């Protein structure tokens, strides 16, 4: 277990790894004090906004990484703006969002980003913003999305994407141009996190009603576990990792039974973010962000 103390003590909203993590070792952490990146698989971290020479910290609530034509795109969501870097976070371009300034809560990159250049940004109060030019321009696309408080986004394929909101779950079948509400039970909302398997199975983590699964495109739902589920991670082998009531739980059988993901791990503060860049095999690294700003590699 490696612990990195060389960080600000501040809340970590999001951790994301490069799709090419195995080779480039790139991982980013969006924090209250800004965005940080590591090029050595989370051993050492640097301030990604150093080139901006900011007078004050720039709270960053979300981040996303994609690689296209050997260029690493890094996106970061801050209040009223989305930043884009084509230099792995060393220099930045700024896209201003429509007033009043939205608070970006999540960024999602299309699985077909190389061809469609599509990204979606979830916001609290202002619905979903969409870019089809690799993050240069952003426009609100909220047809049918009557709940503008978005907590989570997840792509199934380049066309189908889900949004978890305060009142339930919405589905788009045209890459975020329009949305329809799913039959997610209203009393189970808010939905804090989402994950979709390639076969279309949807997992939804809720604020107070646990983890739910649907195998029929969101028509019916089954509760897998109770509690507050803030994070979900899936891998290709069928494993499922959740952050439930502050605990990391792993299931090898689609959520039918659970075990501690890292037995003996007792964090010094609440876990607020996590990523498993190489899958959920217990032998592979798991990067965990804490509410005090620490990032721990398990």
């Amino acid at each position, binding site marked *: 277990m490696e612990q990195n103390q060389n960080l600000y003590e501040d809340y970590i909203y999001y951790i994301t790894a490069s799709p090419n993590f195995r080779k480039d070792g790139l991982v980013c952490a969006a924090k209250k004090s800004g965005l940080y990146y590591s090029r050595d698989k989370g051993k050492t971290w640097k301030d990604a906004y150093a080139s901006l020479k900011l007078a004050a910290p720039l709270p960053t609530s979300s981040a996303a990484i994609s690689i296209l034509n050997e260029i690493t795109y890094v996106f970061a969501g801050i209040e009223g703006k989305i930043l884009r870097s084509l230099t792995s976070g060393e220099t930045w371009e700024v896209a201003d969002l429509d*007033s*009043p300034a939205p608070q970006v809560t999540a960024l999602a990159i299309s699985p077909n980003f190389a061809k469609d250049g599509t990204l979606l940004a979830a916001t609290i*109060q*202002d*619905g979903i913003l969409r870019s089809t030019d690799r993050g240069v321009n952003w426009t*609100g696309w*909220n*047809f*049918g*999305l*009557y*709940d*503008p*408080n978005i907590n989570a986004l997840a792509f199934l394929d380049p066309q189908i994407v889900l949004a978890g*909101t*305060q*009142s*339930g779950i919405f589905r788009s*079948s*045209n890459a975020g*141009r*329009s*949305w*329809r*509400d799913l039959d997610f039970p*209203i009393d189970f*909302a808010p939905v804090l996190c989402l994950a979709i398997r390639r076969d279309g199975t949807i997992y939804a983590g809720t604020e107070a009603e646990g983890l739910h699964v649907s195998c029929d495109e969101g028509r019916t739902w089954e509760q897998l576990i109770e509690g507050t589920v803030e994070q979900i991670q899936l891998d290709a082998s069928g494993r499922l990792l959740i952050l439930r009531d502050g605990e990391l739980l792993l299931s090898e059988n689609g959520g039918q039974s659970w075990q501690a993901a890292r037995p003996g791990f007792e964090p010094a503060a609440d876990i607020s973010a996590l990523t498993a860049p190489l899958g959920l095999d217990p032998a592979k690294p798991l990067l965990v962000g804490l509410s005090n700003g620490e990032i721990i590699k398990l």
Partner: protein
Amino acid sequence: MTPAPSSSIPEFKQTPETVFQPRTARGFQGGINKIVDAIRPSLGPFPRAVAIARATTTRSPELLDSGGIIARRIISLPNRDEDAGAMYIRGVLWNLHERVGDGVATAAVLFQTVFNQGLKYIAAGGSPMTLRSYLEQGADIIANALDGLTQPIAGTEALIGVAQTVCHDRALAEILGNLISIVGEDGWLEIRAGRGRDIEHELIAGSYWPGALVSKAMIYDTGRSRTVFENAAILITDLAIDSPQELVPVIQAAVEAGASRLVVMCSNISEQAQAILLQSRKSDKLQIIGVKTPGLRSDVQMTSMLDMAALMGGKMLVKAAGDTLTGVTPQHFGHARRIWANEEYTGLVHPQGDPKEIRRHINTLRVAYKNAAKDEERQRLQERIGKLLGGAAAIDVGGLTETEMETRKELAKRTVRTLRGAAREGILPGGGTALLACRPALDELLADRDSLDARAAHRILTRALETPFRTLISNSGNSEGKILGEMEQAGCEVGFDILSGRICEMIPNGIVDVAAVQKQAVISAIRGAALALTIDILVHRKNPPIVTEPNAPGI
């Protein structure tokens, strides 16, 4: 045939009379055949127009290619026996048109076959009541078989294909297919009269209602002729504000709520009270505008207020409930990230009501929509749901003449209704092939092998299911027998593409029918014809009133 009058209705001086068989059947058959023969040319991708003379002689005949409108325009036949049959089928067809917006020509030819074949069987000694029972069973069997063939509509191209089958206007079909794919089957799509020749459209963020600024002087952005407030407090009421003093508690509550922008939505604001609002324009602490509560009728006003209050939160003040402005508190205000108003409309972008309450409100309206008995009620609910979902599309339909523009506008409305049905309930292989594919399912009727009536119903319905296909081919100038033979050799998954003149798979080539329309057309036609077969006696009244609005028979 008498066309629908626009200004005068001809007077019929007739004596009462009771008509028995076989004259009843002959008369009914004559009237039904005349109506169906008038509609028959409108079936297919190359619909031929039906010219119907207008009641006023100064204008050219009306050119129609919609079965529903053709049926509606024929309001009487000179022969009273035939008129009874014609008005019967007219009611069935118009009711279908009102419910699903399309499928009238298909229903008409199905109806005709079932009725004519049924009459032959009854004339040969069959029992009308037993036959009716088997025909109705057959209608249910076909409806179930169509359910089994139904596929969900996938993608914008499929929607454009459906639109094309209804409007036969590529430009209009592309716009409508695209817009329905964005706003969705429940979304709000407004079709307006355009000013130019072409069709223009726009996508509008949020929702808007017809509630104008109370004064032009409240337009802050003169360049765009509107006022936009961000994070405003919004008071919703149907009260009128007569004196400036009535505004005092509202302003105090807004200050208490920490608002820097206030929108007062009310039925009217007097000029003296408006002066207070206009003075606020220069204020850097609290700017206020007034807009009119949407809706001219009290019931429309109330539903608009309910919907807006659900979206924005807050508590509306209602005159009928005895509410006044004296007790306004910060909790009465709704909120939106943006609210805009101009001289016609007021719009909300990202209203800040409780999302769960909004969802419950929408679900309530969706249930009411499903249970609504009248088309007008369904349309009103559809519009309300569309506005609540957020995001709107508007089309301005132009034309060279006012007549062309009005015709295209009606066509656009009909196409949109069909597209919504397709998006909700799915699609079927088009070109009459879905009905052909239902023929084997009718074997279920033969469970009672000893029943002559069951076998007759099986034979009649099997033939009826071929009629739409045969009519389509015949309307396109091809030989139906030859093509049917080729199709049966090619397998059950294919049909005939009239446009390209080749046999191919229907859905992959964009040749589709709306499942809800086909199903309803089958049910209406078969049940309507089955009931008509049981009519034995006609009673003509003295000087019967001419009814221009079709009535649905009790089926």
